[in-house]
């Protein structure tokens, strides 16, 4: 990556994985502030089996919360019954009475069982109550297809949360942004939905050891360019850079913007880029209708109309559920060749 909006500290030697960066941010914030608590299904695992020497069966299905219970105990690291509406609601209630509460929804696909608590309580309490309350609540959840897990365990779906006034939403794309945005989310006084991508957990990258905050609402340019702006979201950022590498061979110099935050969206950053490149493709793993991709294309068309040399365009998943069979799932996912084809059409067309 080339530039970031937040300064990287100079002492970055250490590389860790995305999943470890998440864990580190949680750990450091819990060390720093004793009002930070975390709850969810399986976040420690084996709950109530301390007497058998079991205190942390796996630390979350993706090991993002491993070890927290050993360090902070089962009063701050709370395994829950399989009851998302109750514990998400309880986390919101705790957040509005003095805690900084983090809750985990195992997969974003399950959001429908606890949506009301987010939509009608977390997102609206401050407003409805006339500013009386802060809701420093973070929902950690997981997105992403490509794992042979079919229609109910592969969604992205974040556009729905961006739509909801009162929520903030971030989509970290690597270990560095994972840590910095989670730190920011926990310290934020508004409810934040934090989308982890299943396909990124194993990715390694340089991450400062000390805590740091990446501001919510700031995009970053991960590859400068002059011919077209590719906006990536979460894992799609790397699909964009892959496409950009390929396009460079053809003499097309693509700029890649990593959105990082989808509520608020850093339009200053995106529009500044488009005003230079005159072309836009948004690459979004979510389905297309009323998506972040449509949102960005619409706003760029509204605000940078005079600068556009080609239609603002989208590469997204199709308007279908996620199929199980691997060959179908492969063509479901947006990929570099699809981005390249779109760019060629816009640049040559």
């Amino acid at each position, binding site marked *: 990556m080339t530039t970031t909006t937040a300064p990287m500290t100079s002492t970055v030697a250490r590389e860790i994985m995305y999943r470890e960066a998440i864990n580190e941010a949680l750990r450091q914030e819990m060390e720093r502030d004793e*009002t930070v*608590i975390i709850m969810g299904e399986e976040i420690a695992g084996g709950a109530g089996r301390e007497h058998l020497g079991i205190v942390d069966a796996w630390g979350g299905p993706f090991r993002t919360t491993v070890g927290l219970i050993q360090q902070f105990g089962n*009063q*701050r690291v*709370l395994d*829950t*019954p399989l*009851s*998302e*509406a*109750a*514990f*998400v*609601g*309880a*986390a*919101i*209630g*705790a*957040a*509005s*009475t*003095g*805690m900084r*509460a983090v809750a985990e929804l195992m997969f974003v696909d399950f959001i429908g069982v606890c949506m*009301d*608590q987010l939509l*009608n*309580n977390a997102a609206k*309490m*401050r*407003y*409805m*109550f*006339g*500013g*009386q*309350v*802060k809701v420093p609540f973070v929902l950690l959840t997981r997105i992403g297809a490509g794992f042979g897990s079919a229609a109910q365990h592969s969604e992205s779906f974040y556009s729905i949360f961006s739509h909801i*006034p*009162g929520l*903030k939403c971030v989509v970290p794309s690597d270990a560095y942004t994972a840590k910095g945005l989670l730190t920011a989310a926990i310290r*934020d*006084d*508004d409810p934040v939905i934090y989308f982890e991508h299943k396909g990124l957990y194993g990715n390694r990258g340089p991450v400062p050891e000390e805590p740091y905050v990446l501001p919510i*609402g700031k995009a970053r340019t991960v590859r400068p360019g002059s011919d077209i702006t590719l906006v990536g979201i979460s894992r799609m950022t790397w699909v964009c850079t892959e496409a950009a590498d390929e396009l460079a061979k053809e003499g097309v110099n693509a700029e890649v913007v990593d959105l990082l935050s989808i509520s*608020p*969206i850093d*339009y200053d950053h995106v529009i500044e880029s488009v005003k230079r490149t005159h072309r836009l493709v948004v690459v979004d793993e979510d389905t297309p209708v009323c998506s972040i991709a449509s949102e960005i294309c619409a*706003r760029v068309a*509204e605000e940078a109309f005079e600068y556009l040399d080609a239609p603002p365009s989208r590469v997204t998943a199709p308007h279908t559920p996620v199929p199980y069979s691997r060959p179908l799932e492969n063509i479901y996912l947006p990929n570099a060749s699809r981005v390249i084809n779109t760019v060629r059409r816009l640049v040559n067309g």
Partner: protein
Amino acid sequence: MDLDQKTLLNLYKTMTTIRHFEERGIPETGQRQMSASVHSSAGQEAVPTGVCAHLTVDDYIGSTHRGHGHCIAKGVDPKLMMAELFGRATGTNQGKGGSMHIADMSKGMLGTNGVVAASVPLAVGAALTSKLRKLGRVAVAFFGDGGANQGVLHESMNLASVWKLPVIFCCENNGYAESTPVEYGLSVANVADRAAGYDMPGFTVDGMDVFAVYEAAGQAVARARAGEGPTLLECRTYRFYGHTVFDNPLSYRTKEEEDIWRARDPLKQFRERVVPEGIITAEELDRLDQEAEDLMEEAIRFADDSPMPELSELYQDVYVDYPLDMMRRGVNMAD
């Protein structure tokens, strides 16, 4: 009756304040805000009164769409509530919430709520805060007989029991969810019968009798404070008016039924208990009624004299911090 004079007077004062708020404030609100989203709790006063009498200002309650009584019993200022109902900047919520969202965090009042049973897990979360921070506070989650059939209540009762949280699940069973009789919607005789399924005590009490509510709530609150976990307390009560100001309750219930319950008016019953025994004089109670009446006149004046919110308030407090430009999208192009 082993309650002291002061407690008794407070119970009555709360009940009559609620009654006067509902009977005076709701029609006035109707004239000003013209909204169907105002629900009278007249008839049900004994429940919030008997329960909240055991709470301090630091304890928490979560409430429902029918929440004026909960607010008043928890100590929220009726003047500020009236201003809220009138949509004024001086309201509890600066006029931005209205009847279904009245909140006063300084009083541990976590909000009335327009979605049935939706405030229940919030109260559970407040109880969690209390437990983790060792604050010694309890939380009461009020909900209706209709709310008893919502999934989130079930999950919340299980969770509170698993975590042994200091919560009282208080069902105001007023016999109806809108027009749907509880005998139809609830598959079991009493809501409290479900307590056993969560390993917590369950009681069904006469919710028209403030003494019965007071006593049962006292046990539940004591249990919660002692760290022994949650209780499910069902209070059988009745709303004297329609679901909102707009419906005619006689389209789903009979005059005879209404008369029976009206005869059990909790304020009247209170009088009949304390006056003949000479514990409190009728005059004293009349004085409290008069005070409540005066308070409502004052509240209405206060509210009417208060300004409407500034138009810029539309964009305030959506977030603590967010770019105004993004909030005004779809609007600012046009202004």
